[in-house]
């Protein structure tokens, strides 16, 4: 186990190093100039040069790369070109919002997907199965922003049940509300993006669970369980679902990390101040350090989630010993 973990950590570090190096190189060869976004009329040529120098863009690429790596090891992602704030503090602030939304969404869609997936696999061949599979497929392949807009249109604009995006109602927060009110307000804003997320994602878990469950139901120990005269519920939950969950656990950890990356579209639609939106905005502003930092953090999250999934798997499946 120890050896395996060390091996995996080394692997993670190498992968991470390669990814950030590629990202670094990509930005250096790009045909655009970040200082373009700080140009104001009436800026002298000298001033423009000063700005370029400020960002260290006048150094040769190799030197920039060494400095970049050195800073990286010290946990310093540099400062944003756009705002000058340390990248790390921006990312942490945004990441928290993203994790709050995506993780809740993934857990919810996971639970719903698994529950339905389990049920329809048990009722193999029924109309309900076909219906849910097609429904799950449909939402799984629905274009995210479009669905988000439709939901906003119906539930926020027409029915006015939910706010039109954002994370909080500023008016309420200005007058120092109680913690309960704060939570209610946050929850109110969370519901619509959350529903969109869940509707979009439960399908993938549903299909995964169904397939995994169907495979498990073909196993001999299910027959044993039935022969033992166990109750249907016990067979379904204790024997079939427990084993069918094994591959889904891996999927869960990975999808948490990917939901963070995939938050780009939902966050844009719902004005959610998260990391996805930050990446889009930072890319449009050519804010290298911020994009690099955000990308590095996301990659790290993905890698760690994969790692966690492997560890979790080994705990859930007694057959696996590293």
């Amino acid at each position, binding site marked *: 186990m120890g050896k395996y973990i060390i091996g995996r950590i080394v692997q993670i570090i190498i992968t991470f190093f390669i990814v950030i190096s590629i990202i670094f190189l990509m930005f250096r060869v790009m045909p655009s100039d970040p200082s373009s976004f700080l140009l104001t009329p009436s800026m002298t040529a000298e001033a423009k040069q000063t700005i370029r120098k400020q960002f260290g863009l006048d150094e040769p690429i190799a030197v920039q790369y060494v400095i970049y790596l050195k800073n990286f090891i010290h946990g310093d992602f540099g400062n944003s070109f756009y705002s000058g704030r340390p990248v790390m503090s921006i990312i942490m602030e945004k990441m928290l919002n993203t994790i709050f939304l995506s993780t809740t969404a993934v857990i919810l869609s996971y639970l719903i997907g698994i529950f339905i997936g389990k049920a329809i696999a048990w009722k193999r061949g029924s109309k309900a199965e076909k219906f849910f599979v097609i429904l799950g497929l*449909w939402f799984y*392949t629905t*274009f995210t*922003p479009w669905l988000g807009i439709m939901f906003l*249109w119906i539930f926020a604009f027409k029915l006015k049940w939910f706010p039109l995006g954002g994370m909080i109602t500023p008016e309420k927060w200005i007058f120092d509300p109680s913690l309960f009110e704060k939570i209610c307000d946050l929850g109110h804003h969370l519901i619509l993006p959350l529903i969109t997320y869940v509707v979009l994602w439960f399908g993938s878990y549903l299909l995964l669970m169904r397939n995994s469950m169907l495979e498990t139901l073909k196993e001999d120990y299910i027959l044993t369980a039935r022969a033992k005269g166990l109750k249907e519920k016990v067979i379904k939950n204790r024997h079939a679902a427990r084993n069918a969950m094994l591959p889904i656990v891996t999927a869960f950890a990975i999808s948490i990390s990917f939901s963070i990356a995939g938050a780009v579209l939902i966050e844009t639609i719902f004005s959610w101040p998260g990391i996805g939106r930050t990446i889009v905005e930072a890319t449009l502003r050519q804010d290298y350090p911020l994009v690099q930092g955000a990308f590095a953090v996301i990659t790290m999250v993905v890698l760690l989630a994969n790692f966690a999934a492997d560890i979790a798997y080994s705990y859930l499946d007694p057959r696996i010993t590293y």
Partner: protein
Amino acid sequence: METLNYTLDKTEKKSLIRQIWDLAGRSTFIKLGVFIMLIFGGMAVLSPIWIQINPAIYDPIIGVDLSVNGSVGPSFKHPLGTDDIGKDLFSQLLRGSQVAFILGIMVSLISTTLGTTIGLFAGYYGKISDTLLMRLADIILTVPILPLLIVISGIFGTQSNWIILLILSFTFWPVTARVIRAQTLSLRERPFIESAKVSGISNTRIIVKHLAPNVLPIAFYYLTVTVTGAILVEAGLSFLGFGDPSNMSWGMMLQWCFVKGYVFKAPYWMIPPGLCISLLSFSFYLIGVGLEEIVNPRLKKR
């Protein structure tokens, strides 16, 4: 996925494609998928014909109906209405169908071919080539696709569908490659490969003649599923403003609707492209799921 045990006996008379077609005929999913796909195929074909009716008005890029003021709803002349400068939305939708088809199918063809080849070679030869290729696949799989594409698009400074096509192809292959490799690993130990090896057939020939036909059904499955991914990712990119501005894809239509401020005002502009994106990717995925149930015997009814 390592449980995909679909190996075909060499002695079977029907060709592989023929078999899949025979089975496909019985799958509701595949039938529904093909039906939807044919509708969009028809739209793609209709596109140039529609433009030829009156190129000055119906060209999706430069045609402007001067008699229209602002964005108007559906009418006889404009079945879906026009956008804010008087361009016909229907012709844009038709053009979008072409873009989606060409992009989706090209991406899936390239990436699946790449993935299958890499998977076969990595699985068959093993050793260093296997380790290197699979590490590369791992790294690509680690990187979240949409943010990566946004960054790359930003880097290129200017987008064209060809660049998007290339990037998508090179980010989509690892999934296929992994599964094909796992399949190849198990096939490699089978007697018929052993005997082929013993009889002195060259490695390339073994891969092409003996291994490839056996992994083809899985490759077919990924071929259809990748189309879905490609269409959705391209649409997402275009919607965020990183698409090919010189053409009119569905994501682009939505983006124009968004930047011009018509999202909540003009449902005739906002709903069709999103629905088309979703439906077309849905159809390909349906076919994919239908195929999966055929090629993966563990999902078959007993």
